[in-house]
């Protein structure tokens, strides 16, 4: 039985169909990468799963039970955590306190007290690499660190599924490598991950499967290497010229030998 299953999910805003007939499943231990051009509906998808939006059609199931229409806090407590594309920290709290908030409110079953939550935060901060900055006020953090904090707060919830929304956006090459390491550590600790990304290196670097969204519909699904070579995907991103005329796309497809290695 899948951990998370979406079936024929649809969401409209006024006259715009943000999502149409989206279906896929995520199994325990998967790392699913969701890619697609801007406006494809990727963040809308995450918002539906985490409860900020209610889908108009279709269903979302968490271990066979429907979570469609549940309030966000309930979904969080079931073990689903998420980060935001534009980070949303709590500005008046320190890094440690921000992280502890996840432990304080997001644990399925357990009702932690502030003291215990802060201790939990310390452990998590080491995983994401913010251990030394634990007492910094949030406003002192750089952008990459704020993204780590966002992930830390999610991890502190001890989620079974973590939804990452463009964690790599705005990072340079070196920072992407470090962040990729962090995502691998999260994966190895047993957390199932669904991540939205534009940085293809991440998709081939850590994902077990990839899903392409275009205009709110699923286009292709499969192993990352295959998906990225699929002409339909190339057409969606780059236009017909590259797909049809077989001109080599600007982005080099993954060579043999690259893949899910450390």
């Amino acid at each position, binding site marked *: 039985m899948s951990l998370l299953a979406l079936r024929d999910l649809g969401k409209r805003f006024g006259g715009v169909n943000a999502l149409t007939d989206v279906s896929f499943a995520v199994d325990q231990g998967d790392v699913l990468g969701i890619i697609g051009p801007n406006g494809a509906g990727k963040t809308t998808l995450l918002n539906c799963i*985490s409860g900020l939006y209610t889908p108009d059609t279709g269903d979302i199931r968490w271990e066979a039970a429907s979570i469609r229409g549940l309030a966000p806090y309930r979904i969080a407590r079931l073990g689903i955590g998420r980060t935001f594309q534009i980070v949303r920290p709590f500005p008046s709290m320190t890094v440690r306190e921000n992280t502890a908030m*996840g432990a304080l409110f997001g644990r399925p079953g357990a009702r*932690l007290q502030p003291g215990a939550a802060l201790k939990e935060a310390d452990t998590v901060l080491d995983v994401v690499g913010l251990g030394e900055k634990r007492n910094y006020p949030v406003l002192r953090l750089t952008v990459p660190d704020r993204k780590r904090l966002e992930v830390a707060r999610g991890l502190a919830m001890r989620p079974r599924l973590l939804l990452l929304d463009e964690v790599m956006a705005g990072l340079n090459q070196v920072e992407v490598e470090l962040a990729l390491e962090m995502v691998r550590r999260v994966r190895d600790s047993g957390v199932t991950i669904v991540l939205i990304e534009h940085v293809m290196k991440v998709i081939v670097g850590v994902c077990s499967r990839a899903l392409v969204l275009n205009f709110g519909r699923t286009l292709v699904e499969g192993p990352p290497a295959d998906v990225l070579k699929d002409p339909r995907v190339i057409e969606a991103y780059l236009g017909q010229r590259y797909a049809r005329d077989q001109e080599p796309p600007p982005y080099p497809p993954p060579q043999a030998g690259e893949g899910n290695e450390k």
Partner: protein
Amino acid sequence: MRRATVAIATVGLAYMILAPLTSIDAAQQAGLPLLTDKVWFRIATTVAMFVVLASAWNIVGGLTGYASFGNIAFFGLGAYTVGVLVGIRNWPFGLALLIAPLVAALFALMVGVPLLRLRGHYFAVATLGVGVATGEVVNNLGPLGASTGLYLPIVRSDLLFFYLMLVAAALAVLTTWVILRTRFGYGLLAIRENEEAAAVIGVNTNFYKVAAFCIAAALSGIAGGIFAQWNSFINQELVFAVSDNVQMILMAVIGGAGTVLGPVAGAVVLELIIQTLAGGGSGSVYSQIGLGVLLAVCVIFIPRGVIDFFGGRSRLSLRYLRETLRETSA
């Protein structure tokens, strides 16, 4: 600066608690100097009352970030609960005072659930509407005395009401302090800082907001109930005054919204200024002008409140003012 402030505050507090005792007959007979008089009691009780109101507002506006302009409705309902129970139905005051916060909290529950779904401007004016409309409805209800108001049997004891209000103030401050130490408090802060993020990490935002609203209402209701018996007379103008609502907000803000002692500092400082400006009558036109100008100056120049200075974080200087202005000006 900090140690001096703590020292002054402790002395001040001791004075507030002990000085009234000199007015008891026994103390007078023992030859103690009389440290208080009618005016002292009136001002001190009013200050204590605003400490309750400002602290209560702070829970919803300062901690949770939902600036309510209608909290005065809870004060008024508390006052009218006591007014009706004691003035019309002859219940004992003590019992009525226990019911007052319950009535206020229940009302907060009723209006809070729909209203707390609104944000920013909409929430502020919707609550303003609650405050105004509740007063208006009460003013039109015959059984509640309508526009003539309600009279209560007179109880002459400055001492009693001062201490009652002081206990209410202590309760309000203590409540805030406790909240900020618990999970509930962190949840409120999270809602203030980023409500969507709070929701996805597991904070039941609707429940928390309504709970904060009800707590604030209960505290305000107690203050209203005490006021009703203290003043022996209530009507719409006295207990549903929107300017009082603004006053409590101003006190919390210039004292330091979101802190435990900010509202206390703000209430003390502002009420003393108002009393000085009024020169005896709190409704005088000059005091209103003074209040308006003070309001403008405070929100423009010290938006984070004076508690910023006492915490040692900033110093009141030209540079501070200039930086504050730069942050918020066009």
